[in-house]
């Protein structure tokens, strides 16, 4: 079965955002090809989540443009169709079961043998209530919900923060497979293992992005400035 993801180039041009007088993002630009994994690192409160939410179409930028597969991603219809988004907080209804939450994001129908459920090891947990799940299980479920429409672009805001190594591995394996099939992943992270997954890395400082390589990124993490 061909499970490749039909993707295209991602182009982010001159994205700016401000909260009141404070400029959070200043002319952020980068491009990515199918199969890329873009890592955004930086200190807390530096604007990583804001940038990712703009890429996901949750927030509108003050200036700039985003195109993906030739579509204007600032249009909600395009971002809905092309981008899956995982915010820092898990967008899950805690009182409901895994299956209910999947139904919510998949629009009512969920096949229990979906590949994503197998990849994220959720098939055994379908009837479990979310409030009874561990943090890692919730995060895996949230990723499965984020890719409900087989989107070729996956935006993950600190996908493995505060998870144990086993849970991290499951999620990182999923990210690796996703990019290997041609999808693009944009993620923010403070994790060295995730940094090593990335094909492009940007350090976000004072609202601007600086391209860095893996070693520089790891060094910044160790220095506590990312």
């Amino acid at each position: 079965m061909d499970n490749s993801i039909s993707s295209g180039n991602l182009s982010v041009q001159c994205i700016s955002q401000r909260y009141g007088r404070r400029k959070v993002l200043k002319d952020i630009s980068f491009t990515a090809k199918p199969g890329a994994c873009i890592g955004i690192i930086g200190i807390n409160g530096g604007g990583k989540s804001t940038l990712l939410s703009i890429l996901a179409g949750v927030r509108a930028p003050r200036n700039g443009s985003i195109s993906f597969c030739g579509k204007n991603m600032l249009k909600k219809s395009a971002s809905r169709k092309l981008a899956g988004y995982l915010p820092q907080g898990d967008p899950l209804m805690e009182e409901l079961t895994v299956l209910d939450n999947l139904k919510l994001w998949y629009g009512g129908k969920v096949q229990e043998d979906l590949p994503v459920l197998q990849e994220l090891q959720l098939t055994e947990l379908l009837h479990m209530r979310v409030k009874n799940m561990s943090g890692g299980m919730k995060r895996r479920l949230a990723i499965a919900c984020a890719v409900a429409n087989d989107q070729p672009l996956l935006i993950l805001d600190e996908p493995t923060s505060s998870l144990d190594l086993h849970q991290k591995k499951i999620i990182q394996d999923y990210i690796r497979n996703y990019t290997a099939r041609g999808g693009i992943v944009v993620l923010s992270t403070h994790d060295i293992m995730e940094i090593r997954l990335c094909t492009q890395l940007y350090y976000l400082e004072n609202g601007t992005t600086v391209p860095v390589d893996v070693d520089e990124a790891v060094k910044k993490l160790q220095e506590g400035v990312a």
Partner: protein
Amino acid sequence: MKGILRRRTAYCRMIWKKGLLLLPRFVIAIACTAAVLFGVVYWYASYSQKGQVIAKAQVALVTAPGDLVTRLGANAIITIDSVRQVCDIQFMSEKEAEEGIRAGKIDAAIYLTRDIYNDINSGENTPVRVQVSSRSLAGLELFKELLADGMTMLQTGEAMVYSLDAVADDHAAKVSVSDLMDRFALQYVDLAMDRNKTWNRELLSAYGNIDSVQFYTMTLILVVTCVFFGMGFGGLYDRQSRTVEQCLRRTGIGTGTGTLARISVITVVLWALMALIAWILGTYTELSVFHPMQLLYLAALAFSIAGLIHLIHSWMSGAFGTIFYLLIVVLLFVSGGGVFPPAYLPPLIRRMVPFLPIHLWQQFLTEILWGSAARKTVVQVLFLGAVMIVAGSIGMRCTEDK
């Protein structure tokens, strides 16, 4: 478009499921609160009974030894229901009565003179001695009122008989005072025995045009729906639900869908609850809610209350929101005539009452349960609900994470 519709339907279904899952939690909370309230009320009632705070007054009736006619007449009065509800009257000797009052066993004593019946018949104003204990009891106060009312009634009756006697004299008619008294007594007894036809047709009290049982029935329904369930529904507005919604917004599910889903859950649950309470109460009283229009009007009321719940929880969610909700609702209840009738409230607050939702809901509930709902009230209730829902939805947007 089809996908968005499908997702919206799935979302509404999940909110419903979540709402129904929350139900058992607050039904248990309500049951516990009700048990505590019942315990407190029961304790206070038994304390009051033991302390004789609201006990019936113990009254001694003293007649002259061997005066059987007076004793017979008095006996007819003390067996009247309304007298028995206020006091326990026992025949005693003068000595027993005085000692009883001194010992605190008797609250009051009435000393009737020998042949007082004949004195009344002949128009002689023989004074009646009444001794009242210095103890302050609610029952004693009621007894005093009853006594004063009885005296007024007696004097009015006498005045009527003597005026008729005078008129008869003026017209040289042959009629005796005794005949007039007999006729008057018969007429009075006839009316008194059939008093339901005379009284209780137009009730106007501090509660408005309802009695205390009706007033507190409505209070019960509104407290259970607004306070207990209103707090419980805060779970539909928790931070987690809002995070889900923010993410779902990019998939085409907006504030409108979120509001619609929540309002529908809250309205239906409250409507079913109100109908249930009214039905349970109806089995013990003459209340009936089986008319389809009554049930429909209850749905309108539930919609309006859902508006208030939505409004407050949308602006402030989480535990802080629940406390804030409780404060606002209690304030609305107390100042809106939901606990104490508006007539008992301070003048400044009384002027605000007509503008508070609780007052409108009480008025509407009265019309639904014990009358017929006026179209104007239905429109007002629905309009109020709609305004609060819109204001709440604005709150949902305003309080989203920036």
